[in-house]
């Protein structure tokens, strides 16, 4: 079974605080995995490190056994909705078309195939009637589905979603989860930063519990237990926190 994502001894700082400390894990391809942990635990940072948006202090990240540069075209990123200015003068269709730009470099042009892919993606998330709408007019759930369509259009093997269910209505949430499960059945790997504990067992095959350090990573049935959850969200290991923060402070300019 090939590994979609392998991380080894990853250390990531933000200014002079340790955000991720000695993280090592491996996710097999075709898994739908939820990352959970308290606020500030480094969940978004983990995704950003995988995408190369954040530079780690040290550690190794392999995507499908290759470095990021070679596997970039196989990953799709669905960032948090609040990172974007929803007043931007752009239509839904144009947002989805953006997904095709990764492969075009500086001067490539969009082709018919690209447009068709965009329409298909919109269709799949149920947003085709809104293709010409200005994004500012869309509801939270619609915006999220749009972002997902943009990811779909890239035809990736690995999806990275950052809190896709925040501020989204229940119907959209269920629809997205079903879509994700379908994608998983097709062999895609899907990593989701999730904020809602009660739904973890229902939505995901695997769980990754994170609290600056890795608490556990594996099938939900094995890993998602009371003690692990407590360890992730609880205040145990204050000593570890203090020591790692001290270390982070000393190493950074």
């Amino acid at each position: 079974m090939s590994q979609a994502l392998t991380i080894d001894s990853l250390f990531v700082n933000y200014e002079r605080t340790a955000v991720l400390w000695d993280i090592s894990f491996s996710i097999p391809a075709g898994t739908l995995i939820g990352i959970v942990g308290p606020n500030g635990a480094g969940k978004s940072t983990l995704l950003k490190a995988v995408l190369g948006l954040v530079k780690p202090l040290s550690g190794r990240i392999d995507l499908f056994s290759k470095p990021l540069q070679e596997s970039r075209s196989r990953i799709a990123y669905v960032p948090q909705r609040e990172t974007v200015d929803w007043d931007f003068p752009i239509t839904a269709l144009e947002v989805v078309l953006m997904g095709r730009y990764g492969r075009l470099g500086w001067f490539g042009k969009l082709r018919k195939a690209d447009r068709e892919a965009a329409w298909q993606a919109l269709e799949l998330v149920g947003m085709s009637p809104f293709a010409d709408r200005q994004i500012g007019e869309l509801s939270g759930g619609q915006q999220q589905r749009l972002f997902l369509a943009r990811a779909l259009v890239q035809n990736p093997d690995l999806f990275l979603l950052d809190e896709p269910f925040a501020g989204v209505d229940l119907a959209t949430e269920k629809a997205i989860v079903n879509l994700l499960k379908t994608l998983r059945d097709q062999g895609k790997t899907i990593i989701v930063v999730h904020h809602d504990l009660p739904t973890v067992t229902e939505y995901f095959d695997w769980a990754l519990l994170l609290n600056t350090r890795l608490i556990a990573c594996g099938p939900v049935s094995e890993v998602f237990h009371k003690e692990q959850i407590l360890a992730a969200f609880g205040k145990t290991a204050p000593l570890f926190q203090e020591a790692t923060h001290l270390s982070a402070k000393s190493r950074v300019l």
Partner: protein
Amino acid sequence: MNYFTDPILRAPTIGCILMCVAASLMGVVLLLQRRLLVGESISHAAYPGAILGILALALLGPEWEEYSFLAVLIGALGSSWLGMKAIERMERKIKIRSDAALCFTLAIFFGFGILLASWLQESLPQWASQAQVLLFGQAATLTDEHIMIYALLALGCTLFILFAFRPLQALLFDRGYSKSIGINTRSFERALFWLLLFSIVVGIRSVGVILMSGMLIAPAIAARQFSNHLKTIFLLSALIGALSGLLGNVLSVEIALRYDSLFLPTGPMIILVSATFALLSLLFSPKRGIAFRLARLASFRLRCLEENILKEIWKRREIEFAELKRHYHPILATFVLQRLIGQGWVDRKGGVLTLSDDGQTRAASIVRLHRLWELYLTEQLGWQAEKVHMSAEEMEHILTPELEERLTKLLSDPQRDPHAQPIPQKRPVL
């Protein structure tokens, strides 16, 4: 040449000092609110009003020419107030982003001001010089009356900050919270708003519309580097501002005297001086300055290297100098070893290195920390024994005595690490 008594020099000197004090105090407020660029918009928005003031005076009461200063002041206050209101409206009602609102307002108001200035130039040329002065200022022609107004301004700002310090501090730190505990944030902000407007508008006569905002920026930045206490920051900022005002003036005059007819305008000189202060503080201030951060980092890395070498020697009882040079960089190894020998941690006999007694103790304590940490990771956090070494290599240099004590207690004074190696015990203090 006495800058404070000479009748020609004292007004510019004292005036600039006072103006800079007021500006630097307000600059601190803007810095903490993260709105430093608002000063730019205010000063540019003041331009058309100032010209209108001159126009009004020229048309209505030309015999009161010596009060043109007041006309300029009132006009400038009016249009900068209008500018700020416009920005507010744009941000709130039209949802224009703050940077675009600031930029658009400053450009439009200033452009309108240019139009008015050209009109003034053509229709009332005898008053045009007044308008010209507003662009880049003319500190050299300040009079004693100006000093009075500047003194009032500086006093006003200082008194406000002194008496309203506590609520000001709360407001700057956390607006929502201060509102919730009953501070009248609205009136405070209004007071600050007017003080800001005054300090900028009044200063325009000395350094001009375009450079005025610079007076607020650099001293505040410099002061911020030196302290985290609001009172100190205000004080330092005022001091640095005053110094910049003084030095800028002095330099401008001295250079003009020394190098015939090389008149460097005062406004830019003051800004350059204050920017130099800012740069120096960014580089060299203790704790936050880059130089210190670099030094701290370098000394940490050096200590790590020293301790690693000590450990190496401890593990093998004795090492050949040549071998260390091969393992680490030769120059670095030599340098570090000289330090270690010089400070008495290491003894050298010929080409062989051993630890002194003190060296033994120190190396043992580092190894102790290393192994304690490894045990902590495996026992308390469930890490696998193969993975703990790297982490311990880092932590052995970090763990403080207090953390060590807590570890010892937590692990119940252990004797063996996860690799079954003995943990050096703490030597009792004699």
